[in-house]
């Protein structure tokens, strides 16, 4: 279980810190990478596809509201990534948005598996992880 790898994409340092701790506590993963912008996350994932397939995250927690390129912008870029990544990573939207439009739009994306509202809770991670296992 601990072999699970997680990527957090969020511009908020506080949120990243809190989320990391919650995921660690859930026991789902201890291998947690944090990227503060969509561009840096894509860059990271592209590199993994080339050099280190092992580290391709099993789950990506993606924030929507970010400066420059937002969560949806990330998804646009993400679909062009190599198939290995697309096949392995499960994307979970994690946003403080309670706008149903955001929810609909996110869930319409084939790579998005879940939509969670901040703050992230242990139970939510377990629920998401359980499905992941199953």
């Amino acid at each position, binding site marked *: 279980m601990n072999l699970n790898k997680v990527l957090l994409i969020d511009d*908020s340092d*506080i949120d990243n810190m*809190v989320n990391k701790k919650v995921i660690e506590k859930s026991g789902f993963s201890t291998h947690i990478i944090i990227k503060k912008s969509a561009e840096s996350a894509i860059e990271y994932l592209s590199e993994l596809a080339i050099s280190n397939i092992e580290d391709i995250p099993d789950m990506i927690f993606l924030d929507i509201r970010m*400066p*420059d390129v937002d969560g949806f912008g990330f998804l646009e870029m993400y679909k062009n990534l190599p198939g290995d990544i697309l096949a392995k990573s499960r994307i979970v939207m994690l946003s*403080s948005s309670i*706008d149903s439009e955001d929810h609909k739009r996110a869930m319409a994306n084939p790579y998005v598996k879940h939509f969670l*509202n*901040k703050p*992230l809770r242990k139970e939510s991670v377990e629920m998401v992880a359980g499905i992941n296992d199953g």
Partner: protein
Amino acid sequence: MPVSNINAIHIYQTKGMVSTDNLMFQLVTFTNVSICEGAKSFLHDYKDRVKTIEPDQLKQRSMQEEIVEHGAPVLMDYCIFSLLWQDDTFRFEDLPAVVLFLTEEEIEYLQGQKLPDNLSFIHLPIGKAALELSLYHSLNKAGSLKKSNLEEERYRSLFYKSSQAMMLLDPKSHKIVEVNKSTEELFDLPTSKLINAGLETLHPDKTESINQELTRVTKGNHSFLNLKYQRGEDVRDLEYFVSIVKVEQRKWLYINVQDITEREKADQMFYQQHEMLRSTLESIDDLFFTLNKDGDFIDYYQPSGSSHLALSSDVFVGKNIYDVGFPLDVAKKYIQTIEQVIDEDKSEQIDYYLEAFGSRLWYSAKISPRKNAFGVAEGVTVLCRDITRQKRTEETLKRARDFYLTLLADFPSMIWKTNTSKRADYFNKTWLDFTGNKLEEELKTDWVEKLHIADVSNFLATLLNAYLKKEPFQIEHRLKHKSGEYRWVINAGRPFYNLEGQFAGFIGSCYDITERRQAEELLNLQKSAMESALEGIIIIEDDDERYPVTYANKELTNITGISGDEIPGMDFLDVIGCPLSPETRSSIIYALKNKKSFKGEIECHNGKQQKSWRLLYMAPVQDEKSSVNHFVAVLSDITEAKEVENALRDNNRQLKKTNEELDRFVYSTSHELRSPLMSVLGLLNLMESEPDNGDRSNYLQMIRDTISRLDKIIHDIIDYSRNSRMDVIYENIDFEGFIQKSITNHAYFDQFEKVIFEVDVKNGVPFFSDKKRIEIIFNNFISNCLRFHNYEQIEPYVRIKVKTSPVNVLITISDNGTGIHEKHIHKIYEMFYRGTEKSTGSGIGLYIVKEIIDKLKGNIQIQSDPGKGTTFIIDIPNYPGNELRLFSLNSVEDQNYL
């Protein structure tokens, strides 16, 4: 006979010596002695009383005076008389009386001469007594002798003065010896012409018969002679009564002449009248007869060729009316009427008929009283006329009248007739069907009851006027229908005249025009409505080639400005105004040609660049046969509506934009507000789930920071709200103070100490603007500079330059910070836009700055080099003058502006 008074003057012709003794001898010898025995004896016996003078002595005045004094007659013979008669100086008239001794022949000489009245004749020979008598008469005549032979005088007077023309003729010679005045007058001849003339001179053509007749009378008969006498141009009928009279044993033919001309004429006239009457009675068609009281025929005149009892008068005269073949009832009627006529003394008329030759002959008899010379009715005269033809004509006429009456009765129009007294005396069946009355009832009801009360006076006035002028009239009024409602009728009357050509009243007919009138009223209403309409209404004729306007209401004139007189006949396309755009024009023409409707807006450009809009609805008008010959169009001026619409559209666009902004604002705001809250919540969850291992103070600090950020966001939102909500208030801006205060406000910032602030304010010209807004601008810029500065370098700086002018202020804010990437530059003024993950703010700051500068009608420009720095140049106008005063007035009220 007393002769003592006799004095006489005897005149003799001296022939030598004459002695008184032989005076007579002288005289006798001078005259015809043989016939003067009596005179000779007289002169002898009266020689003392007779004075003998010569003719010349008589001429002496003294002698004449002596003679007048004695009143003595002057005796003279014819010789002396003719001697003196021819002497103009001698006046016989001055002598009392002159006695001439004349022989028969001498008398003839004097015939026809105008002789003095005082001249008497004594025929010679004459006896002494006769001479005495003659002298006596002549003296009497002269007035000198009182004694007279009255009886003879009377006879003579009777003879001379008698109105009867009388004459005496000598029975032997048949010559006239004596005539009176009337005879002169009758024959219009003087006595002198008549004396010694024979009757044959008066009646030349009857000489023989006259003489025979006179001869017969001489033998002792009397006789009447009727002779014609030519008197001037006149022919007189004379009747002579001739008889023989004896005077002093001498026979004379006495003739009395009567003018019977007038009597003859009267007789003639009477005869003619009688004949005329008879022929008249016989020539007229009427039968004329007279009856006595008992009905016996006295006279009977029948017209020639009359069909009435064509029998000769012999059949009737003397017979009773019962016995001449009249039907019994006719005869009885005659007898009764005769009694009545005589009793009442007035004419009666009876009509009866007789059957003859299989046909009925009608007679009309006028029976009048017949009176005798004393005015007593003895019977009757009957004028009997054959009236068969008249009867037949009447019959035909009656049938014709009945026919026309039936025709009138069944005539589909309502017909009435009035008599000369203006009262209705006839209504036809159609009328009675309308009013629901019977004729008797209808005749009894007055016009007032038939007509609507409001129409009565006008109707009666019209009728009265028509009667006065005997002219036709026409009037519209309401007439009471049997249903009780009033129907409008048009009533036309005209005078009519009977067969004799006399005015007999009026005849008229009515037509129910209620529907027409209602239609007219509706039409009028429709027309008024169209005139009152607040949109231009046009009716267009479809002439295939042309589309002339046949009607346009007033409003169209108001809209188009074309006068109402000009519009009819104008082409529709010219009327709807303004040069039409080719597209509109062809669309309308297409609709017209294809008989379709059209709806569209027409844009009009007046000369003055004023734009107006008109809305045109046009639709084909279908007639009963569903064919289109007209169009109706409604044109309205929609300029105002159009302007409102445009304004509304602009507003709407603005509103939509504002709404989108608001949506975005709410969405962004809610997210921006929620985001830090969730961070706090996450931290709290973490703190809850972890035992206190020393991180708690970190977490709390994080919570504090997050809340500060949240508060900053809320402040920004309030700033934004203020800017959009509050009016601009102009005050003198102290830039130096503002900038310093703003810098000081950011002293809490972590690396504040590292940044060098260079401030250069040149505000020689006072600058007026909104303090709060300027303050927000500086705060935002300084905050941004601090947050995005490059602290890696040796001297991070912020330079602020301010330069005022009467027109504006130029503010330059530059730094040598991280700069803004080109891809972000066009987005930096968007609300909540954050360029990088370094942006810890809300992303609302520059948005507010831009909004404020827009509000102050200023301008902002940016120059940025990523990694090198950024420069903002702000240009805000200065507002001097009136607006300052405006401010000072409002400043007190706006104290709560914080």
